[in-house]
């Protein structure tokens, strides 16, 4: 029983990480129609930025939380710069060129990270609050994991509220369902695009913060998650926010149980899941059928 609970919990932590990384990617795709391959590199850069602030501010007790906040602000600015220099220039272009440009951005960001932070993995000491374990009876769960799950939950809820309740969120959802209509109604669609890109980077930053709590910050962290997150996105239905939440849970939990049974096949298991879903339900669990072609 304890084993199942602890495995379920580690699955939840993984789901939260999947969700934080994938939700930004899928929102950007849904609203803007561009698949940003460099999303994962932005997540990695966010981890490095959090590490840097955390390292500078280490002497103070509030340091970690402040570091998270500061890195979110820095990443927002960085997102605006990238949006201005790159993203807004590729929105109208062919799929191949979009993928190639964002792929080139992966090369550039990875190499810049290597220049700035070096190749050795970096470790940020956890804040006192997240260092221990929380126990009920025989079950004890790491506090850092609980933090990540709560972070995933709240950012999911927050993003959902933004999309459902604010004017900009409503316009974004309108863009998801029928993009041609917005300019016709006199709505400046490029502002929606800027907003969406910044939102996706903020979500990636939260994922980066979550990762600095969970493990080592290094250059490979983005690549190891990339394909799994693509699978999460495909299973949930590309562009669907709720679908991504559901498929993150499915993938995260099935991963943590698969690793218990056949450790070597845990990652391929997610690929096969995605392959099977695409075969029978190409639009994913909650995607839009019309988006397929």
């Amino acid at each position: 029983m304890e084993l199942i609970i602890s495995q379920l919990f580690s699955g939840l932590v993984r789901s939260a990480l999947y969700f934080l990384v994938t939700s930004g990617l899928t929102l950007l795709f849904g609203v803007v129609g561009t698949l940003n391959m460099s999303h994962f590199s932005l997540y990695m850069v966010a981890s490095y930025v959090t590490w840097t602030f955390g390292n500078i501010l280490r002497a103070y007790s509030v340091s970690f939380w402040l570091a998270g906040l500061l890195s979110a602000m820095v990443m927002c600015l960085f997102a605006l710069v990238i949006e201005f220099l790159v993203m807004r220039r590729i929105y109208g272009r062919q799929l191949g060129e979009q993928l190639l440009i964002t792929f080139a951005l992966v090369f550039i960001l990875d190499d810049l990270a290597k220049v700035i932070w070096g190749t050795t993995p970096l470790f940020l000491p956890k804040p006192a609050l997240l260092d221990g374990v929380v126990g009920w009876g025989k079950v004890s769960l790491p506090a850092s994991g609980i933090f990540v799950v709560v972070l995933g939950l709240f950012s999911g809820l927050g993003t959902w509220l933004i999309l459902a309740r604010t004017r900009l969120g409503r316009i974004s959802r309108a863009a998801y369902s029928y993009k041609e209509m917005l300019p016709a109604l006199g709505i400046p669609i490029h502002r929606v695009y800027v907003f969406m890109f910044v939102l996706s980077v903020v979500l990636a930053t939260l994922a980066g913060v979550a990762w600095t709590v969970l493990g080592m910050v290094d250059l490979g962290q983005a690549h190891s998650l990339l394909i799994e997150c693509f699978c999460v996105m495909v299973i949930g239905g590309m562009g669907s926010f709720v679908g991504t939440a559901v498929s993150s849970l499915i993938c995260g939990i099935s991963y943590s149980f698969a690793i218990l049974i056949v450790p070597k096949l845990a990652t391929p298991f997610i690929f096969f899941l995605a392959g099977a879903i695409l075969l029978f339900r190409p639009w994913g669990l909650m995607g839009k059928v019309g988006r397929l072609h």
Partner: protein
Amino acid sequence: MANKGIRFSLALLLAIVAIIAGILFGRFWLHVATETLIMMLFAMSFSLLYGHTGLLSFGQAAYFGVGAYGFALALVRFHLPFPLCLVIGVVAATLWAWITGYICVRLAGIYFAIMTVVVAQSTFYILFQWYGFTGGDDGIQGLLPPPLLMHPRAYYYFTLAVVIAAFLGYARLIGSPFGLSLRCIRENMVRTQFVGINVPNHRLRVFIFAGFFAGVAGVLYAPFTRTVVPQMANWLSSGNAVFMGILGGPSHLLGPLVGAIVWVFLDAFVSGFTEHWPLIIGSIVFFIVFFMPGGLTGLIEASRAGVKREE
């Protein structure tokens, strides 16, 4: 068509230059030139799908890797003769493209691209995790070509012969009625279906052809570097094919050739003086996509069209 004549005389010129270069080049440049030739095949594999059918594959490395591993396993585990190993590698890659293509071609656009990434990464994982058979992340070393092809110059000419044969096949393929149907599919899939062309079948067939070209590239690459590693099949390796294809101009007959030449020479040149090769190649790609839509061959075509207009 005069245009076609010009393209073929350009290709012929390229072949003659390649033959003469083989005599003049020293060891280092022979190495670079051989890699260029192999990468041409890899780029053709991508261009056939993207440039001519409109299918953006981000997973061609899967067939490149399977070709290389098919060759390596036949040679090292089963001690088969060299030519037979080459055939086994290509057959393995083509079969793998057939099986996985059956799943992939049901999808279009971005979904197709993601599915090919997923397939390629699954292939990478199989090669990476199956220690007992594929050697895991150590890969397989000591893949020597037979004594006749041991010298870099001999291997260069062998590769050149294969690539010329493959290129002729490629040109024949995209010039055939089948190739025309592919471009119809690229332009408008629904209307092509109305005309009575079996679109899913065509897409599967072109996917298999593309797997074949990538497989030939992989098979030639293994004895060239004397080793195979699982990284040959991962998504960064697929990205190389995308880079070369779009760099050269994916729809142009000579696009893959130009793309591969530029790519490999940039690699050899830039990595000679800086370790920040990704930074530089990334910036170059930015420049090319923003300022030269249609790739390098597109630029040449556009300037030629401009000259004609002035006349």
